[in-house]
């Protein structure tokens, strides 16, 4: 197993989340809003969707060198699972569920003559003998099989879950008695697993989202893009949080010259148009990589470095907003009676900060983290358009959209790359937005209505 920089940070992030979860386990002021989230149908449903994305992202974050020693390219677990998708490329564009190429070509027939027409695909629908008639029935049949198997599979999971519940509570736990949000969670899981299974099943016969210009499977590209989106959304916050928290609290609590310096720092950073800052930094990374070539022998490592830097620089441009919020809140908190009282009692400043101030800022931090997530995922697409986003070899929705721009000008138009990126990106961002809403409602005292 090989651990890339971003992989390491992802694992670190998971550790942090687990530690926080353990720490908050018996903290009443955090527990109550969490229970509120758990009770919200929308919140739970979106959380399940998010977890599903995270699961795929994690699969894609475990990298290793496949045996054989000859080919020293890195692959991830996801690549390993999706091997058929990677290897079964076509020559160029083909539509979703197509059995033939999208554009006409000269075909050499068996008897040596040539014909101008749509050639058959190498992989998609290759099991059919006469795709013109068999295609649609076969797709429906395969979809039905896939769905049936998916339903059966997820049904099995549900049953075993219910079985565990039954054993634990030692009474007849009927589905109807579970709280509404649990039912939603189960239902969403059921839908996702069944549909996901159907897609995977179908993708072993067809290109479910078609293929791109060089015949790469679009479904695989979209799936691979999930990790990029998640990494940008989460690691950026991991980077900006320490900056924002430390500077925000220090500025608010100590005031004076420290406050002045920190304010100067973030106003300066804020006043630079962030696109230009990002552009400059991305150029810098490229120079760094060029000068340290021996450290980056594989494409994935180079791309990973750039992704990490992008997170870093986005973190640097984004921490100012949260920092200002925290500073203002700290200013308010330090005038509170209990903090004043602690002062009077001679409690050390550092202890006041950690005991009294920080816990009371947690809700602001949490809300801003979930809110930032979706905007970061969206920002990636825009940055890729200006060529200052992730590495062009990285799979990302931004890169897909950027590439698909030109496909829209074709006639007939090639719509599937754009649509696939749209659907998945929309799914992730919508889930994140809905979840952010729930979190905000649960934590923000003003949103109690």
């Amino acid at each position, binding site marked *: 197993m090989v651990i890339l920089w971003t992989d390491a940070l992802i694992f670190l992030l998971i550790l942090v989340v687990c530690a926080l979860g353990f720490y908050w386990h018996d903290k009443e002021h955090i527990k109550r809003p969490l229970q509120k989230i758990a009770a919200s149908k929308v919140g739970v449903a979106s959380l399940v969707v998010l977890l599903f994305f995270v699961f795929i992202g994690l699969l894609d974050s475990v990298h290793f060198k496949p045996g054989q*020693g*000859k*080919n*020293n*390219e890195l692959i991830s677990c996801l690549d390993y699972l999706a091997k058929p998708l990677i290897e079964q490329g076509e*020559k*160029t564009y083909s539509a979703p569920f197509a059995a033939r190429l999208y*554009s*006409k*070509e*000269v075909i050499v027939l068996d008897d040596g003559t*040539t*014909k*101008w027409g749509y050639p058959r695909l190498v992989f998609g629908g290759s099991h059919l003998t006469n795709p013109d008639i068999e295609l649609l029935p076969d797709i429906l049949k395969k979809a039905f099989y896939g769905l049936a198997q998916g339903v059966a599979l997820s049904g099995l999971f549900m049953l075993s879950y219910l079985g565990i519940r039954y054993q634990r509570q030692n009474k007849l736990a009927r589905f109807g008695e579970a709280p509404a949000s649990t039912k939603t969670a189960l239902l969403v899981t059921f839908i996702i697993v069944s549909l996901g299974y159907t897609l995977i099943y179908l993708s072993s016969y067809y290109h479910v989202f078609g293929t*791109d*210009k*060089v015949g*790469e499977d679009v479904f695989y590209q979209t799936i691979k893009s999930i990790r990029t989106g998640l990494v940008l959304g989460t690691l950026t916050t991991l980077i900006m949080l320490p900056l924002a928290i430390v500077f925000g609290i220090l500025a608010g609590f100590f005031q004076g010259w420290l406050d002045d310096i920190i304010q100067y720092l973030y106003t300066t950073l804020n006043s630079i148009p962030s696109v230009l800052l990002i552009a400059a930094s991305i*150029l810098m990374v*490229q*120079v760094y*990589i*060029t000068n340290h*070539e021996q450290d980056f*022998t*594989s*494409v994935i490592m*180079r791309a990973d470095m750039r992704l990490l830097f992008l997170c870093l620089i986005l973190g640097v441009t984004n921490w100012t907003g949260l920092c200002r919020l925290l500073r203002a809140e700290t200013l308010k908190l330090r005038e509170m009676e209990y903090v004043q009282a602690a002062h009077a009692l001679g409690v050390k400043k550092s202890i006041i900060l950690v005991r009294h101030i920080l816990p009371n800022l947690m809700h602001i931090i949490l809300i801003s983290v979930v809110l930032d997530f979706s905007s970061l995922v969206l920002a990636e697409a825009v940055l*890729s358009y200006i*060529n200052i986003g992730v*590495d*062009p*070899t990285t799979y990302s929705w931004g*890169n897909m959209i*950027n*590439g698909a*721009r*030109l*496909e*829209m*000008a*074709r*006639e007939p138009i090639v719509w599937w790359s754009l649509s696939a990126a749209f659907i998945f990106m929309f799914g992730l961002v919508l889930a994140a937005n809905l979840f952010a809403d729930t979190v905000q409602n649960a934590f923000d005292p003003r949103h109690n209505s």
Partner: protein
Amino acid sequence: MNIRTYISQLIVLVVLMGCDVSQINSPYIEEEGTSSVLYQSFSERPKHLDPATSYSENEYAFIAQIYEPPFQYHYLKRPYQLTPLTASKMPEINYLDSQDNKLVGDVQDHDIAYTDYVIDIQSGIQFQPHPALAKNAQGEYRYHHLSETQIQDVKTLNDFVDTGSRELTAEDYVHQIKRLAHPKIQSPIAEIMKNYIVGFDDFSKQVSSLQKTELRNKSISGVEVIGRYQYRIRIKGKYPQFIFWLAMPFFSPMPWEADVFYEQAGLSNKNITLDWYPIGTGPYLLAENNPNRRMILLKNPQFHTELYPSEGEPGDKQNGLLADAGKKLPFIDKVIFTLEKETIPYWTKFLQGYYDASGIASDSFDQAIQFTGSGGATLTDSMKEKEIKLQTLVEASIFYMGFNMLDPIVGGDSESARKLRQAISIAVDYEEFISIFRNGRGVVAQGVIPPGIFGYTDTKAGINPYNYDWIDNKAQRKKIEEARHLMEEAGYLNGIDPKTKEALILYFDTAAVSVDDRPTMNWYRKQFEKLGIKLVVRGTDYNRFQEKMRNGNEQIFVWGWNADYPDPENLFFLLYGPNSKVKYGGENAGNYQSAAFDKLFEKMRNMDNNEQRYQIIQELQEVVRHDAPWVFGFHPKNFSLFHSWYSNLKPNVMANNRLKYTRIDTLERTEKRKHWNHPQWLPVILTLLVFVCLLVSAIHAYRRSAKETLQ
């Protein structure tokens, strides 16, 4: 702008929107009237329009219509042939020995110390109307001593009301050559001309501290005004290709008044410089220069008489290319170039009839072109329906994959490295590259020389025998097994590097890092994988890439060269040892060095085109094919589309001043544009209706609920 103009514009707008709803999507607002207007686009704003510094295709699109060097390429004749433009005849060429004595009779190359080009220009040619030439009643230049306040009031060149003109003289041509030598002007060809024009280097040093305005009083020893209409250029030794330079905009005339005018302090702050406002004798003048949006060329009212050529290639008559023979040029009154960076709008506007001609981007290709069974390209039905026409042309360029010959693995003269290079040359299947990434818009290169240039042949003798076999009267790429065999001979059995016992890793250096380049890079990787070689793409930004190339730190790269003139010398010099990039900063990017090649090249370059030269060129090709310092990639093929109303077009890679020959049928265009651009209002109306319905029902619901609460 005052209120009145606003009101009048508003009226125009209303009229446009009210009456002409049939073409509401037209991106143009001016009325054409009866004049014939050509609509073109440019994708990148030109950096220089000064003929001394400009050196790129997109800039030539403008200045070749404005400036006139003494010679030009014949529009119709092939192979390319030079004809006089402002010159009255082809130059008189005299060979001199080292004592400046004219050599006569059968001249031996080694006797020639200098060559004289004596050029006569036509009398009566006038410069375009320009403020720099404006004179007042006393005959003094009107705008050569501008005061600060005068300059302050000026925004563009058009704010100078008076213009003047004067006759073109030989001195203007000489003045331009002095400008080429001036270090402050930074002409890209100054370094080359140093080696040829006598006294160029000395002059350059002599004037380095002087202003441009003082050039007039200095003289270059090798360039002399002989009479009002005659001048002479003396070059070192023999350099038959020099005549081609004289057909490039670098050698256009420049009046000394222009330098005096534009050098006035303060004008450059307004972007009023020679780089932006040309002054020439050509068929067009630059009327509006807004590189942020559009450039407009207008017919030069002072343009001298030039007639449409009356002879051409066989077949030109049938194609209607001689219909205008003997008529006075130019035919088009006004050319509007609009800035268009994105390909989608560009292509769409062409289809809507708002651009008269278009190249084809790879992505819209199969919409426009289809290949017939025999491999030829024709237009698709939807294009034929619009009566769009197609022209193809193989460019005088080559794109190749170069090996850094200084590299220990792929470079050098060792047999093992040569075999490796040859194996790679077979494996990298440029036929596939052309079909995937260029939609067949290219011809695979068999050697250094592109079609259309002396020394090229498409027969069996012209194939690269190391990569191709001649089967069925066609060149057929050798099988990959042969490449694998070569790999084995090179010591890399199955691509395994004996040193590391792992797959051989090679590095591909490129500045192509955008998303659009990703498939290309993947493709290259796949090609090397065929031999078991692992290709690592090292993408960096352009500057870093250039630096690597300069220091020789690259291993494999792709590079292109666009021939300056149609002569094999301009291509083979890319492999000439003394042009090595690392050692001498020349154009030999792969740092190829071969004694045999250099010797042949030195012999070939100064020869006239004859049988002997042809043979030497074939020998040169053989040396290069055997050593394989390049994977000869392909010669790009240019497909251009144009509408049926645009005529007199003949592809010509060398001539940039084609605009003056072309013609527009305005009536047909207006007709077709109307037909193609019917706006579809229905969906808009439907959307509005749905919206109104929703609004009404919402109000209704609100009223009802309000009533309920009251009760």
